[in-house]
């Protein structure tokens, strides 16, 4: 049974595309067949985050308009045998695709894939409506900031109104040092305000910038965000993985403790 998951947030710049790329890659690493669809027509980005921008021939709009077959537009990620990308069109706008067309396209993909991830554009207009039309479930990405949380709450309301009931939350860019001194809302604060199930916590990590520079998702690497996304991918696939103790990545002291622990485990 395949699952169609929309990754959305309302506000821009909170990590939708990064999360889509990393969860998709993480699922492929776990052995699932996954396809990532960039639904942000006119502002495509998932291709660059995945490092596949030079391999685009056809795009989502070409498929919908019948300029090519679906198979031809799918880009196979050579690093992972079960990972594919359907890129968005850069020179068109959101009105080039309708919710009905998205549903048709996704139902075709269901036959071949375990997971279909839809990277949703920011906002609540046509692009959002297209992206959620075919979704079975949603992952809402937010950061611990008032603006992102407010938009996430609005998105959660709209998802429920459009019969996407299965909603889970990623709190991204958490800085445990700021949470400790009372200058950032904790994950618990955010989750209780939004009243949805938490599926992951991603610490603020400069490695994300580095991995995006290189076009290689860092999921599974030994970095705070890499571990976090690996855990999220496993949870998305239905595994029960305990949440990360962010303190590990916190201050100098905890880092030293962590190194000692690691060494002890090694011994």
């Amino acid at each position, binding site marked *: 049974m395949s699952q169609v998951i929309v990754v959305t947030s309302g506000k821009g710049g909170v990590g939708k595309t990064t999360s889509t790329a990393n969860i998709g890659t993480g699922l492929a690493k776990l052995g699932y067949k996954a396809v990532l669809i960039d639904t942000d027509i006119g502002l495509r980005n998932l291709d660059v985050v995945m490092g596949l921008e030079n391999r685009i021939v056809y795009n989502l709009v070409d498929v919908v308009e019948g300029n090519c077959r679906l198979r031809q537009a799918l880009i196979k990620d050579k690093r992972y045998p079960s990972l594919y990308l359907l890129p968005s069109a850069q020179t068109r706008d959101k009105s080039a695709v309708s919710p009905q067309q998205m549903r048709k396209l996704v139902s075709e993909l269901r036959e071949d894939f375990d997971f279909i991830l839809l990277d949703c554009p920011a906002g609540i207009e046509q692009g959002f409506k297209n992206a959620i039309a075919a979704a079975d479930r949603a992952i809402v990405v937010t950061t611990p*900031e*008032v603006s992102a*949380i*407010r938009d996430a*709450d*609005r998105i959660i*309301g709209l998802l429920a109104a459009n019969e996407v009931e299965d909603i889970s939350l990623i709190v991204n860019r958490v800085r445990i040092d700021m*949470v400790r*001194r*009372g*200058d*950032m*809302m*904790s994950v618990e*604060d955010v989750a209780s*305000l939004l009243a949805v199930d938490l599926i992951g916590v991603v610490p603020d990590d400069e490695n994300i910038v580095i991995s995006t520079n290189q076009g290689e998702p860092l999921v599974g690497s030994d970095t705070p965000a890499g571990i976090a996304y690996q855990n999220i991918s496993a949870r998305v696939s239905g595994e029960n993985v305990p949440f990360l103790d962010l303190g590990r990545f916190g201050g100098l002291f905890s880092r030293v403790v962590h190194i000692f622990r690691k060494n002890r485990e090694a011994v």
Partner: protein
Amino acid sequence: MKLLDFFKRKTSKDVAKDRLKLLLVSDRASCSPEMMEAIKNDIIQVISKYMVIDTEGLDIQITTAEGENGDTPVLFANIPIRDIKLSA
């Protein structure tokens, strides 16, 4: 005194949480303009049975008020009365 202030200090996280709590309640409670207009017209009809009201000056909105379980959404209506009909 300063030390006491330090311990009692409201952190910026608390400020953010409090602001969001209010904001989300009003965001979630917000109705469509059409629905607000319909409520307004119904209120005018009902109240007009008993008194003469200033329909132009009538104002209704959804806000929050402190309830038993924290802030709850309330419908606030400000209805200026022109004349109270004695026949009612």
